[in-house]
Structures are given as structure tokens and as C-alpha cells.
């Protein structure tokens, strides 16, 4: 299945388009990479279901935990895919991811909540603003070595965070609009949750009443004893998954093309790319701006579920988590990026929280150990102390995983993968196409 066929369709209008569409869907679904992603996801669901059942969760609890897992798997997959374009393909070592995410989300807040634009228009505007910032950072940073670029991008992200959290810019007037970043606690006003628009008549009334689709949808989930808020979460997770699909489609096409080929060449040896006549600056700026824009959009999709916005959501750790996820999956591979996002978001990020919940449900500890010395008083206090402090231990684990991966398996879980940068199958000379 190919775009060559798409071309053929274009030139013979009214041809067997339906056939071709069905073929195309089938081809995508049967592609081994998609299967790989699906199998990973199912395996992770199985693990969580098993633990949940062992831990005694009810049906609603199980669904809701799967919903959370899907949510984090999806949001991480989105950011990781964006980073893969910059670092995996073009070798641009951007550790200012959190900054670009913050710019995207704050722009969204200003455009929708503060200025009053509709969700899709606000999102589009926010993405454009983020890509401009991406280009702005890329422009001078082009000449820098990878480690200097890292320092510059991290400093950029920290500058962004200080400005967003500062009292000075909590409220100001810009181009006639009274806007503001809201200081340390973030701007007032809840971001619109796009999924609510599908389900409710007036999503932001005090007691929103479901619309026709909402009635049907909630009714459906009632059959499986799933409450409305979990059902809503599931729809959001599906909405996110749709975007993962879109990102994947977009980035696979970007990577598997002459454009992607030049990016790879820049990563491998920029001097060679230049000596072969490629204006590498143009490619680097484009890749950086596109990647940043996708990071901004990912942040929007991530936090519109939550509604609130604060600068603390964009500490440098966010960036490093994304790096861990990409390295797990394997930098340079889009499929690996999705799998890395899933494995990281579900197992490493969400997994410990899930286990903490289950253990806390089981162990109603007598006295809460407050220091590490209390914890050594026995098995139970130790477990309780550990689970209480799981958020810290989780990051210790992430750090260790990162070190081990980079030492032993820098190519990621999937190993070296050949994702050939071309729109056609180069090895099949007779004309078979990708």
C-alpha cells in the first residue's frame, strides 16, 4: 500500500477509492509496527488488571486505573514522538522540553480562557506561538555543539518558568488585552476540557446535563457498572489516543521521506550533509520548530483534562522523564517512541502510584512512620514508609533506569531498528513502495 496508489487515485477520479481506503486501513493495521504497539499496550493492561484484581479493586476501580494508565501512556507518547523528531532524527539535543510545553499551555490558557477564543482556534494559535518560540531558540542555537545546545535549551526553559511564575507578569496588558500568567499559582480560570463538549449540553454549568450523545455514552458505560466520571475519563483517553495516532502518522511520514533523510544525515555528520549541498540550517529550524509545536500541543492535550495551570508542572524533571521514555523506546524510531511513551507512562510513571494505592488499601498501618528510622521498626512500617515516599523512590528508579540504559542498551528496548528514511521501499528496485 502506498502513496503511489494515492497518486493513481488522484489521476483517475471516481476510481475504486473505497477499495483503496479499505486496503489502506488494512495495510496500516497489519503493519508489524502497529501490532507491536498494540501488543505492548495490551500486555500492560493485562499487568494492571492482574494487579488490580489481586489488590481487590472493583470494576469501576479497574476501569479507572486502565483509564489513568492510558492517559499517561498517551501523553508521554505524544511528547516523546515530538522529541524523537528533534533528537532521534536531527540529533538536536533539546532539554528545554518543559519550556515549550509551558509556552503551549499558557498560550492556550490566554487565548481561550483569558481572551475567549474557541478551543480549536485557541489550540491552533498556541501551537503557532510555540513553533515560533521553537524557531527563535533554534535560530541562534544552530551553531552550537550538542552539549552547549543542551545548556542553552535548559536555561531557556528555566527562564520561561521564572517569567511565567513571576509576580511581575502575573497580570499585564498586551495589545489591548488584560492577560497574565498568574504568578506562582498560575492563572485563574479552568481550561476547557474538549471532551466535555461532546458529552454535555452546557459543560461548564454547575450541574452539567448530558446531551444526546452523552446520554447514550453514559448509558452504555452504566451497563458495565462504570460511573460517569470514569466514563468521561475513558473518552478523554480515547481522544488522546487519536492524537497519538495523528502524531505517529505525521511523524512517520516526516521521517520516511527525503526530509527525514536529511535530518538523519545532520544527526550522523552535519559536515557531510552540507558538503552534499544541503542547507542544514533550514532543516534544523524546521525540525526544531515542528517538534516544539508538537510539544506545546501535547501539553495542551495533557492539561486541558486537569483544567488548572501552574508553573510547577514544568520543572526540568518533566523534560528528563521524556528523555527516559525516548531512550527506553529507542531514539530515532517513531514506533520505539510510542512504545517508550507507553512503557514509561504506564509502568514507570503510573505503576508506582498504582501500587501505592493498592498497598495503602491493604495496609492500614498502625502508626504512620514519619522518618526513615521509624521505618526500620518492622516490615509494615518499612513498607508504609516506602509507599508513602514512593514519589521520591520512583524518580530514584527512573534515574537508575536511565543510567543502566545509557550504559548497557543505548539503542533502547527494541534495539536498532531500520526505519528507512524514504517514501518508497528503496531495496525493492522493481517498484514496490512503502
Amino acid at each position, binding site marked *: 500500500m502506498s502513496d503511489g496508489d494515492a497518486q493513481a487515485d488522484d489521476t483517475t477520479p471516481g476510481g475504486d477509492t473505497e477499495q483503496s481506503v479499505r486496503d489502506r486501513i488494512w495495510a496500516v493495521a497489519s503493519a508489524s509496527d502497529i501490532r507491536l504497539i498494540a501488543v505492548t499496550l495490551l500486555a500492560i493492561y493485562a499487568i494492571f488488571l492482574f494487579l488490580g484484581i489481586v489488590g481487590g479493586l472493583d470494576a469501576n476501580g479497574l476501569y479507572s486505573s486502565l483509564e489513568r494508565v492510558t492517559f499517561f501512556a498517551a501523553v508521554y507518547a505524544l511528547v516523546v514522538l515530538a522529541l524523537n523528531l528533534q533528537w532521534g532524527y536531527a540529533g538536536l539535543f533539546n532539554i528545554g522540553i518543559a519550556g515549550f510545553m509551558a509556552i503551549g499551555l499558557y498560550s492556550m490558557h490566554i487565548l481561550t480562557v483569558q481572551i475567549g477564543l474557541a478551543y480549536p482556534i485557541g489550540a491552533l494559535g498556541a501551537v503557532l506561538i510555540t513553533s515560533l518560540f521553537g524557531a527563535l531558540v533554534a535560530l541562534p542555537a544552530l551553531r552550537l555543539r550538542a552539549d552547549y545546545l543542551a545548556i542553552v535549551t535548559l536555561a531557556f526553559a*528555566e527562564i520561561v518558568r521564572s517569567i511565567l511564575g513571576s509576580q*511581575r507578569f502575573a497580570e499585564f496588558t498586551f495589545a489591548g488585552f488584560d492577560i497574565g500568567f498568574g504568578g506562582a499559582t498560575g492563572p485563574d480560570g479552568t481550561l476547557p476540557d474538549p471532551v466535555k463538549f461532546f458529552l454535555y449540553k452546557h459543560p461548564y454549568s454547575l450541574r452539567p446535563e448530558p446531551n444526546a450523545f452523552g446520554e447514550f455514552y453514559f448509558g452504555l458505560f452504566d451497563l458495565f457498572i462504570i460511573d460517569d466520571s470514569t466514563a468521561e475519563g475513558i473518552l478523554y483517553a480515547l481522544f488522546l489516543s487519536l492524537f497519538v495516532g495523528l502524531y505517529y502518522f505525521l511523524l512517520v511520514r516526516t521521517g520516511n521521506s527525503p526530509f527525514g533523510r536529511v535530518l538523519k544525515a545532520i544527526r550522523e555528520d552535519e559536515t557531510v550533509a552540507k558538503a552534499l549541498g544541503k542547507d542544514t540550517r533550514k532543516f534544523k529550524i524546521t525540525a526544531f520548530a515542528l517538534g516544539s509545536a508538537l510539544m506545546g500541543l501535547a501539553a495542551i492535550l495533557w492539561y486541558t483534562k486537569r483544567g488548572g495551570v501552574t508553573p510547577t508542572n514544568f520543572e526540568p524533571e518533566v523534560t528528563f522523564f521524556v528523555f527516559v521514555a525516548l531512550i527506553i523506546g529507542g531514539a530515532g524510531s517513531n514506533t520505539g517512541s510510542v512504545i517508550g511513551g507507553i512503557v514509561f507512562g504506564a509502568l514507570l510513571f503510573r505503576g508506582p502510584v498504582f501500587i501505592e494505592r493498592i498497598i495503602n488499601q491493604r495496609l492500614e498501618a498502625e502508626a504512620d512512620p514519619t522518618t526513615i528510622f521509624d521505618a526500620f521498626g518492622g516490615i509494615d512500617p518499612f513498607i508504609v514508609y516506602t509507599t508513602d515516599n514512593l514519589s521520591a523512590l520512583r524518580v530514584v528508579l527512573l534515574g537508575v533506569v536511565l543510567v543502566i540504559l545509557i550504559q548497557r542498551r543505548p539503542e533502547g528496548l527494541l534495539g536498532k531498528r531500520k526505519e528507512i528514511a524514504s517514501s518508497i521501499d528503496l531495496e525493492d528496485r522493481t517498484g514496490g513502495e512503502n
Partner: protein
Amino acid sequence: MVEQSQDHWLGSRLQTDPLTAGFVVIGVLFFLDLLRRLATGTVRPDTVATFLWSGIVFGMAIGLAGIGLAMTYSILQFANFAHGDLITAGAFAGWSSTFVIVGFGNIAMEILLLVGQPARISSQLGISVTTAPLAIVVGFIVSVLFAAGLAVGLDRVVFRPMRDQSGISLLIASVGVALALRHLIQFIYQPSTPSVVHDPEVPRQAIPVGSGSFTIDAHQVTLVVVALGLMIGVHLLLQYTKLGTAMRAMADNEDLAKITGISTERVVLYTWLIGGGLTGAAGYLLALEQGFLDLTLGWDILLVIFAGVILGGIGSIYGAIVGGLTIGIVSQLSIVWLPSEFTTVAAFVIMIAVLLVRPNGIFGGVTSV
């Protein structure tokens, strides 16, 4: 990319390129503006003196911490993002010891070891450099030793197996170390910011400036004096010992170091020992000066330290000292023009500007020690 040629130190200093000239012009303009503000009375002299003094104190700490970072940058060729958390680890270990010494017998051992967690006991202990000098000296030494040992240990486990890998791989590994280290400290000490000194006990002296005055306290003086002493020590070591020669040689060229007869791995070992030790010292002194410990004590200033190191010409130890001092002073003085919440922003902006226009640094242009 083809390597940029490394200008000779003197040569590049004398070189007058437009970019450096631009920096100088901007600096002079700010200085003139400062004078203007002083003359017109928009800024009081004692305010400037306060900023200047706190800039010197902060800058000495940054410069001291920067030596280790510059050493690993030049000798192991990577940007060590775990450096900040090494500062934190050293500070926590040192202050645990100080607390144990001061409070031994009166307060439960585990509370002392955790620097008074969960209860706050700093006022009970009443620590300051004059009330508990011995405990502070011991704590300081523990910080140095602990951070040095930790640095060597981390090198053994994490960095040594990766000697042949790229600087970026090492950088990523160091990020992993940073994450793990900081949260391990959090796991042990819990997230909070325990006070370590008892403020009323700290001797202070007001120094008159113009019609007003500014205050210096004993802990600030301690920091400046000890940091200065250590910097001089490093200078003597580099210039007058065989090890120092080997280190300087290795920063330039690995093969060259072999001529001195000291093996590469030995030089690396001492790099971590000395760099790590100085880092621990900086951490302990910073906590002494600011009066409390913080899980992000080191991480929060890591980029500022990078800024100093970059300003001084990455990998140059003397550059790191001068760069750190400059960044410290400039970031504090920036309060004259900017809201005080933007001091680090000012430091970062300078750093980015230096990286973009003159990646060899403005004080050096050497990549050697």
C-alpha cells in the same frame, strides 16, 4: 564539525573582536547607568553595597563549586549535570554531622542525623560559627570527604564504564545520577527545608556607606575566606605539583599527560576527589550562609554554576572562579534594574549570550585548566 582552533590564552585576550567589544560596551553602559543612578539618587550607595557584597558572597560559592564542574568538563569532556546534587549531598552529610556533635546526648540520635526532622531543633541547638566552631569545622570536613567519596564512587559505578562513550551519553547518564541522588536524599531526609543555624547567634557588623550602611555577617565572611583559601590551594596544586601538571596536560591532550608519568586513571581519580571535595565544601558553606538546607540547594544553582564556567571559558579552572564571581555579582546587581525574582534569569541570559557569541568564554579562550 571541524574543531575550532584553540586560541592561545594571551593571544585571544589581546584579540579585539567585535563581539567581545560589544560585551565590554554593554558592560560599560550598565556601569555608567549605575553611576548615573547613584548620582541622581535613584539608587542609594548602601543598597548597591548590599547587592555587591551579597554578589561577592554568592559568587565565591559559585566559583568554588564551579572548579569541580570545570575539572570534569576539561578532563572527562562532559557536562556533569549531577554536579548540583553532589553539592546537596555533601551539605546534608556535613550538617548531619554538625547536628550530631552539637546535640549529642540531649536530643535523640535519629533526629540529629536527619538534621532535625521532623521537629525543628535549630533554635534549640543554637548553632553558629561562634557558638559551635568545632562542630562546624567537623561538619565541613565531613561534607568535603563525603562529596569526594561519593564523586569517586559514582565515577566507578556510572562514568568509568563509559569512558569511551560520547560526551552526550555521559551527560545523559549524569542526568540519571542527578535524579536518583536528589530523590534518594529526599527519601531519607523527607522534603522540607530545615534550618541549620540559629539566626540570633550569628555575629553581624554594619558597615557605613554614605548616609546608610550594609550588614555583613560572620557566616558570609566565613564563606568568602574559606572559599578564597581553597581557591589558592587549588592554584598551588595546579602550578606546583606533578599531579597539577598532569591535570593541566590532560585537559589539553590525553597523550601529553602520559609524559608526566601519571596514569590517566590516576588523574581522573584525583579530578573527582578534588572536584568533589570542593563541591561538598561549597554545599556546606552555602547552607551555613543561607541558614537552611534544601533538597534543591545544588540543583537550583547548577545552571548558575554552568553560567560561571561558561563565562570563564569551559574547562578553565581559573576561568570558572572568575566567571562564578562575575556571575554572582552581576546577578545580584541586576536587582538595580530588574525585579529581584529575575536574578537567575539575568545570569542565564548572560550565559546564553556568551555561548552564542563567544563559546570559548570571555575571560579565557583556553579549554585547558
